[in-house]
């Protein structure tokens, strides 16, 4: 249903909207985006606890003048698998996609096993494959340890 537009925050000319973030997870999404790295004239707006038909409650994050790297999209897919990402150009939604989890997740999260070789100063990035999708469980391709708690292990 085309409900009244939900632009609770000022429209942006160019940038990225991350919508349908699970309730309360927007701060983690901001951490992933790395607000400190943004152009100094960019505004970031966050809407917490927004009514959603699909999800009950959700969060929304809007960032001006930025498009997300694939690595950041993968990180968002881990903690907010329901999120949708819209690219805004000239006030219009030009691209819209869901954050599909890829088969391999490289360099996004640290292996939870402190004894894993990837946590020992070797010149190698962490790498996981997806052991299960719903809910997401990752498996370290090196030590084979499984992980379902990504928040505390994001790099």
């Amino acid at each position, binding site marked *: 249903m085309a409900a009244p537009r939900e632009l609770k925050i000022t429209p942006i000319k160019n940038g990225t909207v991350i919508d349908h973030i699970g309730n309360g997870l927007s701060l983690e999404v901001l951490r992933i985006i790395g607000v400190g790295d943004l152009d100094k004239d960019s505004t970031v707006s966050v809407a917490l606890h927004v009514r959603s038909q699909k999800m009950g409650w959700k969060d929304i994050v809007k960032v001006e003048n930025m498009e997300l790297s694939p690595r950041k999209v993968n990180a968002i897919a881990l903690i907010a698998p329901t999120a949708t990402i819209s690219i805004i150009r000239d006030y219009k939604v030009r691209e819209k996609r869901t954050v599909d989890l890829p088969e391999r997740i490289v360099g996004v999260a640290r*292996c939870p096993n402190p004894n*894993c*070789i*990837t946590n*020992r100063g070797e*010149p190698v990035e962490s790498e996981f494959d997806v052991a299960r999708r719903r809910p997401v469980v990752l498996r370290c*391709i090196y*030590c084979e340890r*499984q992980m379902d708690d990504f928040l505390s292990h994001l790099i």
Partner: protein
Amino acid sequence: MALKGRDIISIRDLSREEIEEVLKVAHRMIPIAEGSKIDRRLDGIILALAFLEPSTRTRLSFETAAQRLGARCITIADPATSSVVKGETLSDTVRMLSGYADALVLRHPNEGAARLAAEMSDKPVINAGDGAGQHPTQTLLDLATIQEAHGTLSGLRVVLLGDLKYGRTVHSLAHALALFGAEMVLISPPSLKLPDEVTEHLDQLGARVREEEQLHRAVRDADVLYVTRIQKERFGDEAEYAKVAGSYRIDNSVLAGAKQRLIVMHPLPRLGEIAPEVDGSPHAAYFRQAFLGVPVRMALLSLVLKGKGA
């Protein structure tokens, strides 16, 4: 089925057919391993044994296997006394060694080390144990022992006893037994049960697995009794450990009701899990098991380096 040039990191990297091939070749290696037949098929080969965590038994077993087939070894036996590896990353050590040798055997205290080494090396890497991770040649020699005693791996009833939680050998063995359709019976203290992760994996493979509480009942109709170490560190207090260890101890009275063909296995070294009186019984297979490590490793080296077992 080509094992030539392959890395052998985890038993899960091998298909049932590949495991069967290794076991078949291992069987033919026995007279060479015993010294009654001479075969120098790996003449000219140099094997690097990087034991970045000391493990004398496994190292000697690999050295014996290599030398029986005419290969020579360059060995790091103990990182503490080796200036080569002090302060160096594993990645650098591996890249250096892969420039010297035709294949690498790696033992390392960190899980996942062998997988990383395989990425860094342009020569095949054989995992000889990485931390609490994988140790595929142990699993292969376990299978060789069962195969030799029973002539098959299918349709057997295998009791896995002791620490099923932390014991990596048991997890890998259970995976392999599932590939061959053996039935598994698990006996462990409640705090040392098989992890859910492993149980789920075995389910996915369609394995027949059940738990049993009574040791006598489990032993009665078993073909294999696989005993693992129960380590003191796993228990809060000494008394609890002593109680658990005592209730899982294998002696001749436990074996009294067993089938004649039951074999008792143990990855060794044992602590007190199997009474010395069992050593003389026809059930005792753990020393044979240790010996079979040599022909199994010969088979693997031969297949990885030459691609053939004949």
